[in-house]
């Protein structure tokens, strides 16, 4: 199921090319992340400043998720991961959601304490208040987002695999 028709190519060359493309993907992601960090340090922590980088990171990740799900390899990746790891992919996604929520809550709380408070006591008060409010808003949202996305992708991938197996049985 290729996106476009290709001429038959040497399998060894194709494998090596794919290996290089894989390396390029990681390289691009690394450069994009470095660019985000650099811009945050030099220009400021505004989303407008890093919009292109965010689009690249999210776009590539979303594309991979959609393609791996539609080709049925997502559930196999999860299976391999769960076989080799003590923590299941589902639990890992839960922890990732929690970590993102925590990181956001911390950054908002720090921002409020530093920029809007007058005096140490008010800074602590703002920090605690904003931290817990942000945590209660963002942590459940990101946990739900990561867990639901994962489960939906796995379910779809399982369906694709089942369909492929059913087709083989019919033949």
């Amino acid at each position, binding site marked *: 199921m290729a996106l476009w028709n290709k001429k*038959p190519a*040497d*399998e*060894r*060359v194709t494998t090596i090319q794919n290996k290089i493309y894989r390396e390029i993907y990681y390289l691009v992601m690394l450069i994009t992340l470095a660019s985000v960090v650099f811009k945050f340090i030099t220009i400021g922590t505004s989303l407008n400043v890093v919009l292109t980088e965010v689009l690249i990171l999210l776009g590539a990740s979303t594309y991979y998720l959609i393609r791996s799900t539609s080709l049925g390899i997502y559930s196999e990746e999860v299976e391999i991961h769960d076989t080799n790891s003590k923590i299941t992919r589902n639990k890992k996604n839960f922890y990732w959601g929690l970590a993102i929520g925590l990181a956001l809550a911390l950054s908002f709380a720090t921002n409020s304490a530093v920029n809007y408070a007058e005096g140490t006591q008010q800074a602590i008060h703002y920090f605690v208040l904003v931290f817990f409010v942000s945590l209660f808003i963002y942590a459940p949202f990101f946990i739900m987002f990561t867990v639901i996305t994962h489960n939906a992708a796995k379910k779809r991938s399982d369906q694709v695999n089942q369909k492929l197996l059913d087709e083989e049985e019919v033949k």
Partner: protein
Amino acid sequence: MKNVRLKIARTEHDLSQAELAKKVGVTRQTIGLIEAGKYNPTLQLCLSICKTLNKTLDELFWEE
């Protein structure tokens, strides 16, 4: 491990690496690397080579 049987079968058919490569749709280097034992071809390519050289998979690729 070198694949001497492939090389013998190829020369029996009076084919160069490049000619065999062209018949099975790969590059000369790939055939060279298979013969040198430095590349493991897929089953699809093994079958293609076997059909071209009128040999079975066992005759060309089974390790004794």
